[in-house]
Each structure stands twice: as C-alpha cells, then as structure tokens.
C-alpha cells in the first residue's frame, strides 16, 4: 500500500487541536499536503520523531499526539520504545511507515530480520501491531484515535515512487518551528510555564 494513501485516510481523523510530529522523508511533505493546519512539527531527523512526540504528550496530556515516523529513523534509536512503554502516555498514537528503505539508498533491516511491532511489544507497549492493507490501516487508525493508548502501528508501505517537492518554509527547520510555536501558543490548552 502507499504511504500517501494512508496519510490521506488519517488526516480527517486528526482534529484541529491534536498534534502531529513527522520524521524526515516524504512523511513531511505528504503530511503537509493532507493536514497543513494545526500544530504540526515536521521533519525531525533520525531517531528524534518518537521521543519528541512523547515529550509533547507531557505538555498536552488531554490531546492526542500522533507520531508519523519511518523505519530507519526509529531504528536509529529504538531505545525510545522502552521509554514510551514506561511513560505509558495514554494520548500517544505512534505510526511507523515501514518501507524498508533508507530513502533511495537501499534496504533497511526490516526487509530482513527485524520486526518493529515485536520490538515494541518487547519494550512493553501492548497495543502494537502491523498493518499491510488500507483497510487494516484505516481500522487500526480509527481504533487508536477512539481509545486510550499508547498505540504503536507499523504500516508496511511501498517505497516512494520519486522525490517530493516541499515548501521548505512550512516543513523545514527553524521556519517550520515558527509556525508550530504559533499554533502552540494559540492552543486552548497551552499553559505558559515561565
């Protein structure tokens, strides 16, 4: 199944006051295409997406926080799964789009022996599973959005067909942070801790 189709299905489930965090890779421009508004933190580098999202759950415990990660990124720091399990945030929904590729640079470990949902279960996240079709993805996402978490969903997707152009002023680095902080400061739950 295709990553973009999954994200297109997910976007309407994410309400305006929910948070989304993406890794580097097409997760960023694709997510921006389907959900440009609301508090989105785009394009975190390897290993940082899931722990950053976890931190957001501590700042906004009453809102769903959706992590949109990639297999290579998560595997760079798989210990973050242990931290997630232990913090046990009820509002975290963590997706990993597993295309078994490092961008266009060859296959990752999930093409061979590694099973990320199993690692998550070992870490101690009981609601962990793998989905392979759009129907399965849709059902799992709906269930995760409608129940307490944490949820960990590995979506097996095809490698992307080509590079995707993105508006770097919205999805990249320091400029992106400005848009994110703007949304955060206007968020009804925001408590400015001095």
């Amino acid at each position, binding site marked *: 199944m295709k990553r973009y189709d999954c994200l297109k299905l997910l976007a309407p489930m994410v309400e305006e006051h929910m948070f989304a965090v993406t890794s*580097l890779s097409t997760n960023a421009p694709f997510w921006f295409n389907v959900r440009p508004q609301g508090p989105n933190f785009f*394009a975190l*580098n*390897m*290993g940082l997406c899931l722990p950053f999202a976890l931190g957001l759950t501590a700042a906004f415990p009453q809102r769903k926080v959706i992590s949109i990660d990639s297999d290579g990124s998560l*595997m*760079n*720091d*798989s210990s973050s799964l242990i931290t997630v399990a232990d913090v046990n945030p009820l509002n975290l929904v963590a997706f990993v789009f597993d295309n078994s590729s*490092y*961008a*266009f*640079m*060859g296959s990752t*470990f999930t093409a061979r022996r590694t099973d990320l949902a199993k690692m998550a279960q070992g870490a101690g996240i009981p609601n962990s599973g793998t989905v392979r079709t759009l129907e399965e993805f849709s059902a799992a996402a709906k269930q995760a959005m409608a129940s307490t978490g944490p949820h960990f969903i590995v979506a097996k997707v095809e490698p992307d067909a080509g*590079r995707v152009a*993105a508006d*770097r002023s919205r*999805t*990249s*680095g*320091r*400029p*992106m942070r400005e848009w994110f902080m703007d949304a955060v400061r206007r968020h009804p739950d925001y408590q400015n801790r001095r």
Partner: protein
Amino acid sequence: MDQQSVKIILDTFKEEGIDLVVTLPEEPTFALTEAVRQDPFFTAVTVAGEGNGIAFCAGAALGGRRVAFVTGVAGLLVSSWALSQMGMVYGAPILILASYRGDFGDHSGIPGSQLLMFKQVAEPLLGALRVPYRVVNQKATLKRMLQEGSFACQDYSHPIVLLLSGEVLW
C-alpha cells in the same frame, strides 16, 4: 560524490589494507557505500545507529582489522558518545570519512537550519572530542589525504576524521 572520487577512495582503501567498511547510508556518500557493497574485496556492514557503528569499528580495529566508517556530520553527532570512549579513552584506530554538509550550495532535503547547525558544529565537536580531522575538498589532494589519514590512524592509534566537502563531495 562522483565516480572519480569513489574510485580514488576505493583504490586507496585497498592499498591501505582497509577491507572492512561500516556505514549507515546517507545521501552525499551513498555512491561510495554502494560501490563498497558491490565490490567483493570489501566486507560491508550496515548499522542501525552510528553509535553502534563506531563501537563496532573499535572492536574490529583493536582486534586487528583495518576499518573505515562512512557517515556525515549527523552521524558524528549521534556517535559522539561512542567516539568519546573509543577515541580519547581507548585510542581505537578508525578512519572516518564524513560528509561535511551545510556549506552554501547544499540544497538537499535536510532542513536549512539543520544544515547550518551541521556546518557550525562539526569542527568544534571534533575538537571537543579530541579527534584529529582535516577538511578534504579537492580531488587533487584526496588520495594523499586518505593515505596520510590512514597512516595517522595507525601511528597515533586514534580515530581520524576526513571531512569531505567541495568537489570531492558534490
């Protein structure tokens, strides 16, 4: 990195006896690591995290293998814990080739402020970790730098970093 630079590096690795090359793939050096993978002379190892990568290289190097680690500034940052141990504490002879991203003209998919950070942080980071490094940005001097870097690696018994930039990288 073009095939000319790739060839210089692979030929020099062979002359230096470096037959184990470890990496986590990254874009600017991908042509190199892919060529290593295709060449039966080399044992190519892919690691899940650069921290594992540096520790792995140290075990192999102290055990007597000639080893090179191919990464970028991001990988140096991730592996800085392992580098502090394997460099300053244990003096493992590891030759590290790292893409020196973030100079003007790097229009890659990494966010701009990350590129800026890579450029600003790379040299002070290596200085702080006491890892000797040189910036290599000319094809004319690439071979000599690899040879001298490899020699220094064994001579000092220490990791050595060659920061690849300019026409060597792009």
